[in-house]
């Protein structure tokens, strides 16, 4: 098997396409100010840059505000049912190597009802790119807490505060053998585009968590990390992990820690290596994310390693006979027959 990029077998467009080509005629129906708009805009801008035929892109979503995404893209799209998009997309990707397959999901869709399909798609390394719109809330059902909501969150279903420890979506993914794991934010179009470009180039399952603001039910959930510079810890492959006047170092006991640059010096900072076979460092980096109100969170590509894509492996075991009818006849006849005259 020759490894190729995520889009390696998708036909190229003969004519250049632009954002308008990728924009459907449907009215976009998110709340004013919703972070989903920015992600959509970035995505519509990104797609033409991939150079592939428009008709070869498929977007499968689940249910949630975020899952309305496919309607607004003029490609093939399926707005499926709650939590099942990774399973459906797996079928699409196995069946067709010439498609650019995306999954759009929310924190509830992907991590609550759909958690199992997500982790299995990741471990199998199906060649799909998953965008997880994490607004830390159930938007569509009008504001219940989600598996990524911070403990203590007061919502419609938790008037006295939620008591669940939230998932860290990236830790979950890394625990599930994911080969490409990244995080970005709705408001940073450039970063979003870069990360998604890398994700789609990765052959295998890519999970991209996108911090997404829901102004209606969880406004400002990421303001601190998005706004003030020192909130985000940008991960850049081959670069020391520094941000503002801080950096990430490994403590004597082996744990990672944020330190003052001035105190420890840039040499002490860990150099990010997204391609390490062992996911342990990526996992440790994922733990630098706040569990409660998010004030500090690494963004960028945590892990990007080569591993055969599941669908490629499936196809490598399967061959289609030249004459299907004849092959079928042989099958129907089977190894042992007798004749009645």
């Amino acid at each position, binding site marked *: 098997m020759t490894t190729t990029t995520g889009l390696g077998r998708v036909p190229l467009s003969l004519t250049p396409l632009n954002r308008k080509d990728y924009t459907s005629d449907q009215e976009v129906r998110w709340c004013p100010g919703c972070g989903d708009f920015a992600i959509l805009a970035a995505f519509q801008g990104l797609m033409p840059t991939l150079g592939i035929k428009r008709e070869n892109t498929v977007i499968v979503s689940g249910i949630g505000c975020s899952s309305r995404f496919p309607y607004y893209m003029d490609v093939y799209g399926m707005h499926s049912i709650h939590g099942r998009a990774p399973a459906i997309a797996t079928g699409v990707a196995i*069946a067709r190597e010439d498609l650019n397959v995306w999954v759009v999901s929310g924190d509830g869709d992907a991590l609550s009802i759909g958690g199992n399909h997500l982790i299995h798609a990741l471990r199998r390394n199906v060649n799909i790119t998953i965008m997880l719109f994490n607004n830390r809330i159930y938007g569509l059902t009008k504001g219940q807490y989600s598996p990524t909501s911070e403990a203590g969150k007061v919502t419609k279903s938790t008037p006295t505060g939620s008591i669940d420890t939230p998932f860290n979506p990236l830790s979950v993914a890394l625990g599930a053998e994911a080969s490409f794991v990244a995080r970005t934010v709705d408001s940073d179009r450039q970063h979003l585009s870069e990360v998604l470009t890398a994700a789609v180039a990765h052959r295998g399952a890519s999970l991209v968590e996108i911090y997404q603001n829901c102004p209606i039910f969880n406004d400002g959930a990421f303001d601190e990390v998005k706004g003030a510079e020192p909130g985000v810890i940008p991960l850049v492959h081959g670069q020391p992990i520094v941000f503002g006047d801080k950096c990430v170092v490994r403590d004597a006991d082996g744990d990672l820690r944020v330190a003052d640059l001035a105190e420890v010096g840039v040499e002490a900072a860990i150099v990010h290596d997204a391609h390490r076979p062992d996911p342990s460092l990526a996992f440790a980096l994922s733990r630098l994310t706040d569990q409660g109100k998010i004030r500090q969170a690494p963004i960028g590509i945590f892990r990007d390693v080569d591993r055969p894509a599941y669908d490629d492996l499936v196809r490598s075991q*399967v061959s289609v006979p030249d004459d299907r009818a004849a092959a079928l006849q042989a099958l129907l006849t089977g190894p042992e027959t007798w004749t009645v005259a």
Partner: protein
Amino acid sequence: MTQVQKVERVAVRFAGDSGDGMQLTGDRFTADTAVVGSDFATLPNYPAEIRAPAGTLNGVSSFQVQFADYDIRTPGELVDVLVAMNPAALKSNLKDLAPGGTIIVDSGDFTNRNLTRVGYTSNPIEDGSLSSYAVHALDLTGAAVAAVTPFGLNRKDASRTKNMYALGLVTWLFSRSPEGTLEFLATKFAKKPHLRDANVAAFNAGYNFGETAELFAVRYEVGPAPLPPGTYRQISGNKAIALGLVAGAVQAKLPLFLGAYPITPASDVLHELSTFKNQGVITFQCEDEIAAIGSALGASYAGSLGTTVTSGPGLALKMETLGLAVMLELPLVVVDVQRAGPSTGMPTKTEQADLLQALYGRHGEAPIPVLAAQSPTDCFAITVEAAKIAVEYRTPVIVLSDGYLANGAEPMLVPSVEDLPAIETNFATEPNGPDGTFLPYLRDAKGARPLAVPGTPGLEHRIGGIEKADRTGNISYDPANHDWMVRQRQAKIDGIAAHIPDVVVDDPSGEARLLVVSWGSSFGPVSGAARRVRRTGRKVAHVHLRHLNPFPANLGEILKSYDKVIVPEMNLGQLAFVLRAKYLVDAESYARVRGLPISITELSGDLMDALDHLEA
């Protein structure tokens, strides 16, 4: 010399410990039956446990084959010959031996310890309790071991050849040629010559013992059945489904995709299809049944024939996604190999109690065509038909089989690919709307919508589970549109009735007043019972349904033309319920929910009573 007696029909059961190779023995004997040209039907019976401790009642595994010189419909209820390799096998199978039947037991295994273990307080071979049967107590193990001494096998391997010894004996008993088995052994053990030679020796010893020992007063011979001429093979229901799925895909010129999660008794379809990779078949073992149907739906969307196979509990889990498939109007074949429920129930036992779930188990108005196989062979045809309906009507289709059909085998006239129905995909490649637009829900005369597969330029569009506007497929909350779409989806499924054959009543006299209606695997027992009833000079009509939704167009008329309608089912009356609702006919349920096929003996008796009552 022993006399050879011609008989019409015989049922033989090989029973022993799970480790005794009874399935293999039965398979071999069946293959010989096929060579003779008799019709046959088989029924394996595995223990519920993977490997119960040797010699226990729970560990008994058996294989039954009935063969006849006419066309038979079931593997038989009572057996004429029981081969019992140990006390447990005797004990648990004796109740199914016909009065006066023949027993061949391995007396070598009837030690005190083994007897006590299964609750015998005295040795049945000796205590006279079997006096109403023809008992042949032979030290099969001892004889086999003796026969294989020259080949230097260890004790365990040597005694394992006892099944071949027994097979040799039975082969002789039914006047069969030993050749088939000898060839089989040569192939099977080609790489282990000492095992080959030992098994051959044991088999020959058994055969020769029959010939020389003169213990048996008669040998039997069952002649060939007047089957339609042609090439035949043996097939089980699960294998036939696997072949049917492949054939459906080939006929539709689509790749075949199976998404599945293992579950008894459906797993073998997955196993079988996973050996067809060189036929372009993709099998995907999923994390659960929801992913199985989800991936199949994704594959269908992407232009494959998406299929999934499961049993009752798995079908329950697929219901939400089936509802989505109804909305998306995509082809999908869902096979449910039913087992005894509810809940985990009795996974290794058969039942027909998923019919209502298949018909009505979804929220909202979500009609789906439902077909049911009537025999192992029919599992093939029904699956091909399901694929045709799924593809041409753009709809999920449910195929019902059951544990009885799944593992039972019978001869199948090898289908010729040329005779298989054509399946038209008719994928959309051009715009069909104003201004070069694509209307994904603009229906054809059948009510089917156009399918544009991803990758088709210019037809990019979005579909989903939210109600869609007619023609455009855009999201719509319009009340009138919803009512319209609900009815359109229903009408499309109802309309399939126009394309399925009318049912044909089996009523040789044309004068019956009582109609028996069957569906699924009850075809065998019910048609068998009808025959028996007719043999007494009584008149009974039989209609068998392979199409449960929609029903054949002429069904209502037929039902109404009889004085009495009886519906035997392995459930509490599910088909009867639907017939009553649809046709307002007082269809009477005949319910037997035992995890076993309906008994021909019991049913024919009950039908005769009903007839006598009707006449009175």
